[in-house]
């Protein structure tokens, strides 16, 4: 089974909770879920929605058209009505029927223009009610439910609370249509409102009364609700439900993080809150065995410099940011490169350039992240392609940083950051703190001989660091011989890394090894490509997905070996240039002309991969996608 639905409304008006409730209930039902959250750079009032997918098999992407649409307001109707499949169901409060679709002040001017055109072209009137009628004529069931009355009369809530319970009402209706039992819903509500008993009870009452009433209306209108959700999905062990920000936070915590610095920025900051909220690590006895500190810095420059300072003092230190913040960190990262400091920068890409689309998806900082900073220095750039990977990679990144003594950039995207999904609990990863200085005698921080010098922490020995070129002790040197040796010492780490890193951390083949065609992706786009495989191969293709993970140093041999087996190679990523394609061309000397690109700020969806693949097969080279609102 594969259920896709959208629930939307004004930002800050309960739409986020609606999504959380749905996702929680579906996962408690034993399903795998994957849910995208789309919102404006705004706190209250602009349109926002969740696109939720539930399946009995793991999913890593969303898919259009959707089966259901739940609308908390007229703008949601106006924005998404065209995304519902024939035979689908639309649910909204009966009270918005009279709302005028063409007079929604929060709506983007251009979107409103398109709406007017589309209403006109389809001969639809101006109100939500008229749109409903048109939808019904298209074979879509519209259920305009008098939620307000139900909540007030049957759940007994009074006016201000009615408005706030609208999201629960709407979600309940949607989930019931899909077949989620009321008990599961109530259980999910109890989890969500764990710390607010009263709210939990009220919402449970709302869910129940909406459930009964909704049933009644369906029967009355002779609507057969699809109820595709089976009540008996088997869970294989316990699952965790996380956003990407949470996944990385958990990974960092398991990986021995002891200092996290940050400056607030979307979509990175939530990671730091999760760490803050779980800052007491407990062992099996419930005892605290560690408590990483989170410091809000005055800006990103301070954030990276503080993290480096922490690392020098011997604690595992990291920071997290997005494009604008990363741009500011570049100088500090160079210092870490020159001083061989193990520090992890978690980099969540969002729409650029500049402030760009601060809350929207993008994968456009790949080339920047591998060559950011003046001068040359070794770094690792590792890109995760799923939430499970993001968690485990967070641990690996910290190990890499200390093993090779260099800055590690953990490259993620808004898709991963904000999407929620079910994952298996992680296995506890080993800690590798790299070579430590145990000798006595004069300590040379940058002892040559090996690419990596044994490390002592500040406080253990007397030592020097400088951003200038330096000798083995860490004092400034402009001597050309010293320069050359130290430069080479730093740069030669790149080969060491490539030779020691497991293949699975460089690039991963998803699908059958005897592929004919290959879709190359990275980051969250991997999920869409992987999810598309079954469908594509069912059409007789023999496609697999190659997900590239290590971006610097680049595993050109491995990638080349995969590419050389493929007849047709298609790169799919969320940027304009095709940055991974460029990187492969650069490193492997292979032309990659088939590119599927999306830079609207929305993720590439499973259906887009399928249709693009077919278009490429029909001869198109560069396909730019535009799906999603």
């Amino acid at each position, binding site marked *: 089974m594969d259920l896709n639905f959208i629930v939307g409304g004004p930002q800050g008006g309960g739409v986020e909770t609606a999504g959380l409730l749905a996702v*929680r209930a579906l996962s408690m039902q034993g399903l795998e879920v994957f849910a995208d959250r789309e919102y404006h750079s705004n706190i209250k009032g602009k349109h926002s929605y969740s696109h939720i997918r539930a399946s009995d098999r793991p999913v890593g992407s969303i898919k259009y058209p959707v089966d259901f649409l739940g609308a908390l307001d007229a703008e949601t109707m106006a924005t998404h009505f065209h995304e519902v499949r024939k035979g689908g169901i639309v649910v909204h409060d009966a009270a918005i029927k009279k709302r005028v679709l063409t007079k929604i002040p929060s709506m983007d001017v251009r979107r409103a223009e398109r709406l007017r055109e589309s209403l006109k072209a389809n001969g639809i009137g101006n109100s939500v009610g008229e749109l409903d009628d048109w939808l019904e004529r298209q074979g879509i069931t519209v259920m305009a439910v008098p939620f307000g009355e139900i909540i007030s009369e049957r759940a007994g809530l009074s006016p201000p609370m009615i408005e706030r319970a609208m999201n629960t009402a709407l979600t309940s209706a949607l989930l019931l249509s899909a077949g989620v039992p009321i008990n599961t819903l109530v259980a999910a509500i109890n989890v969500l409102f764990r710390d607010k008993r009263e709210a939990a009870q009220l919402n449970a009452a709302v869910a129940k009364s909406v459930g009964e009433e909704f049933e009644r209306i369906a029967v009355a209108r002779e609507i057969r609700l699809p109820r595709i959700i089976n009540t008996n999905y088997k869970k294989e062990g*316990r699952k*965790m*439900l*996380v956003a990407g920000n*949470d996944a990385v936070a*958990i990974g960092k*915590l*398991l990986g*021995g993080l*002891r*200092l996290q610095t940050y400056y607030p920025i979307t979509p990175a900051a939530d990671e730091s809150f999760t760490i803050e909220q779980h*800052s007491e*690590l*407990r*062992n*099996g006895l*419930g005892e*605290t*065995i*560690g*408590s*990483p*500190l989170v*410091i809000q*810095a*005055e800006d990103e*420059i*301070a*954030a990276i*410099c*503080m993290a*480096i*300072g*922490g690392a*020098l*003092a*011997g*604690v*595992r*230190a990291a920071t997290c940011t997005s494009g604008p913040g990363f741009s500011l960190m570049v100088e500090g990262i160079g*210092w870490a490169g020159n001083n061989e400091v193990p520090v992890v920068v978690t980099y969540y890409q969002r729409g650029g350039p500049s402030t760009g689309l601060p809350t929207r998806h993008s994968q456009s900082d790949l080339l920047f992240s591998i060559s950011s900073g003046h001068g040359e220095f070794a770094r690792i750039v590792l890109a995760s392609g799923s939430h499970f990977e993001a968690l485990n990679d967070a641990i690996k990144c910290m190990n890499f940083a200390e093993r090779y003594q260099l800055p590690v950039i953990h490259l993620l995207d808004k898709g991963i950051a904000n999407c929620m999904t079910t994952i298996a*609990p992680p296995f506890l*990863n*080993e*800690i*590798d*703190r790299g070579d430590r200085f145990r000798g006595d005698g004069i300590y040379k921080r940058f002892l040559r001989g090996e690419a990596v010098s044994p490390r002592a*922490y*500040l*406080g253990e*020995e*007397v*030592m*020097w*660091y*400088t*951003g200038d070129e330096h000798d083995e002790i860490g*004092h*400034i040197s402009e001597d050309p011989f010293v320069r050359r040796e130290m430069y080479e010492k730093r740069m030669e780490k790149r080969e060491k890394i490539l030779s020691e890193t497991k293949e699975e951390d460089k690039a991963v083949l998803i699908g059958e090894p005897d592929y004919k065609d290959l879709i190359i992706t990275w980051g969250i786009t991997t999920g869409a490509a992987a999810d598309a495989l079954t469908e594509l191969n069912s059409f007789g293709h023999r496609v697999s997905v190659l997900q590239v993970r290590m971006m610097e140093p680049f595993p050109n041999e491995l990638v080349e070996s995969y590419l050389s087996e493929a007849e047709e190679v298609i790169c799919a990523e969320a940027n304009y240039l095709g940055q991974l394609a460029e990187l492969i061309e650069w490193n492997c000397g292979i032309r990659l002309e088939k590119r599927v690109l999306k830079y609207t700020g929305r993720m590439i969806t499973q259906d887009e991969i399928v249709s693009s693949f077919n278009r490429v097969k029909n001869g198109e080279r560069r396909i730019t996608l535009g799906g999603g609102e």
Partner: protein
Amino acid sequence: MSETSTDWNTGVWPDWCPGCGNFGIFTALKGALSELGIDRKKFVIVSGIGCSGKIPHFVNVSGVHTLHGRAIPFATGIKTANPELKVIVHGGDGDLLGIGMGHLVAMGRRNPDILVVVHNNGVYGLTKGQASPTLQLGNKTKSLAFPNINSAINPILIGMASGYTFLARSYAYNIEHLKGCLKQGISHNGAGILEVIQPCPTWNNIVTMDWIEKNTYYLENWDPNVKDDEEALEKANAIVALEHGKKKPLGILLEDGRKEPFGKRIASVYKYYATNTPAMQRVDDRGAALPVDLEKTFERFFV
């Protein structure tokens, strides 16, 4: 002096110009470290970029020579991760009061146990004498083509407005006075600024011995300590008045032990921190995973 401080030299040749005030700061610092009985491994000088920024390479304690303007966040990271370390910052007036001003102010808000030593020479020494933020409006040093068109910053007043709990000013060539201020500042448990008037004979021909003579005086009968709110306002006003005077006072202007240092503030929200600083929470088990219980730690995420 010079005898007792010999051991504090790294042997790296200090490449400051002859007559540079940095030599005075260097000497006084070594004296202070010596008299304070500092443990070398536990003391870290964090510096910015500039002539001043080179100082850690000459002093035989750990040194972190960072980026232009960024010594304070580096120092904050080090100190916070390992509060057992004694951390001081050295930087130029351009470094700390220009490009690094945002951090200087932010540090006042946190009150970490770090002393910031501002090498005030009125110029950007290492880049050949451009006006620094402490150069007075209209001044034209020999390194400038035009008189300076920016007004000067007074680090004491900025420090006060930012919440620093230790404020002092000294002169690079009064080694004894400077050493005293350094000792006091290093011992103070909170954020401190020590402005050192540092002659730069190469570029700044205004701040000479003669200028010092005419434009500074040593504070006398001045108690820098603050005990309560009322006194805090009194002191604040008195310092404003002192700093508005024609001559600059030398000495310790403020020492306010009432405000909690950053470490304590952290411990107030991170209980574990008080007894287990990040540096003490060893994660040293090579090849083993940390014994974290997933469900006990991340309960909320399980379904």
